[in-house]
């Protein structure tokens, strides 16, 4: 297995990205392709005493910044690190791509370079949040698509079902729509229309709307929302968790182990679904440990064969 890592993307690139990469090859003994400015990577790698042959460098002279229009930048900067890293996956030279850079650019690269699965218009990001039943509930989309159409929320629900059942082995996953009330008329036009589509879709076990306060109850296996809402929800969860953790730690003098489940640095990254390749999106503020864990998510996604399983189950649902 080989994973391509966009070394130039992220708030702490390239230092922290390379630090996480070195940790990964030393602990996991898997190959990494570091994609970015070769001289910068070499200079940074010189700080470590890594003597193995698991790190390869592929030069990419450009970087897509967080402040750039992702799609326009993708077309203009053909030698950008995320473009080159994603192309390595398309060409079969890498099994997955991992980036802490612009999510929009990574999503656009996935769409234009890897291509979408049939009937999937936009790839969403899926991520687990711990629930009260000692399991996980999956939130989809947590940030790839700010503006969505109702049918795209239906596609996210289908992909959420596929991921929860085929990859995470959850039998007939319960799908809910995140909303500001349980009644079917609640929410914006997008959510009212999406509710009707989800209700009519025979392929999914739709259990209705769910409010934000019940995300952790374990009543749903997959919670669907647009990427704008999902990203705010996820970052609010992270912020509240950190706030509680700091105060608990102050009072108890230590932190119960449970809090590690809520720590994004431990989760590392999350896959884009519905595309013909593994692309793992990491937090822009990822440091060494988060980068290492993001790479582990990529390894797991490759080992679990998520692309083939998604494609097979989507095709099967279409036949039925």
């Amino acid at each position, binding site marked *: 297995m080989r994973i391509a890592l966009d070394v130039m993307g992220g708030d702490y690139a390239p230092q922290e990205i390379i630090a996480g990469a070195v940790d990964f090859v030393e602990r996991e003994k898997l190959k990494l392709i570091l994609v970015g400015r070769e001289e910068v990577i070499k200079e940074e790698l010189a700080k470590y005493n890594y003597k193995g042959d698991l790190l390869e460098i592929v030069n990419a002279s450009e970087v897509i910044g967080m402040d750039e229009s992702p799609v326009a930048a993708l077309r203009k900067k053909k030698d950008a690190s995320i473009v080159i890293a994603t192309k390595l996956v398309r060409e079969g030279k890498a099994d997955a791509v991992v980036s802490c850079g612009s999510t929009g650019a990574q999503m*656009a690269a996935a769409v*234009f370079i890897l291509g979408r699965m049939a009937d999937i218009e936009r790839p969403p990001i899926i991520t687990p949040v711990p629930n009260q039943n000692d399991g996980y509930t999956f939130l989809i989309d947590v940030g790839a698509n700010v503006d969505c159409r109702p049918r795209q929320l239906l596609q996210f629900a289908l992909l959420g079902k596929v991921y929860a059942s085929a990859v995470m082995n959850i039998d007939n996953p319960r799908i809910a729509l995140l909303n500001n009330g349980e009644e079917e008329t609640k929410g914006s036009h997008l959510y009212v229309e999406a509710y009707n589509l989800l209700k009519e879709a025979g392929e999914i076990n739709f259990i209705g709307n769910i409010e934000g306060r019940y995300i952790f109850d374990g009543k749903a296996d997959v919670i669907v929302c647009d990427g704008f809402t999902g990203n705010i929800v996820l970052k609010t969860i992270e912020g509240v968790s950190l706030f509680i953790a700091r105060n608990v730690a102050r009072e108890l003098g230590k932190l119960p182990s449970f809090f590690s489940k809520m720590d994004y640095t431990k989760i590392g990254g999350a896959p884009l679904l519905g595309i013909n390749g593994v692309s793992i999106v990491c937090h822009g503020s990822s440091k060494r440990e988060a980068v290492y864990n993001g790479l582990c998510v990529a390894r797991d996604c490759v080992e679990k064969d998520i692309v083939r399983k998604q494609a097979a189950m989507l095709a099967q649902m279409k036949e039925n």
Partner: protein
Amino acid sequence: MEEFFVQARRFLAEQLGIEEDLIQMETTFEEINADSIDIVEMIMALEDIYDVEFPEEDLENYPTMGSLVSALYEYLMQVKNA
């Protein structure tokens, strides 16, 4: 130009799942909820059909279907006549 526009419109309408008639020269991309990925996919489809690579332009300068398609067509004619 008309055929060029029709091809662009057909692709975009199919992409968005809407009737072709809803897309006219003066239609803004915002009106039909076409985002930058939809627009770039349309440009790429035209690149495939006409075997040309359009220059990278700031899409914000072309708010309507007509303004974008006209600019693309103008470039195509320049390349063909060169």
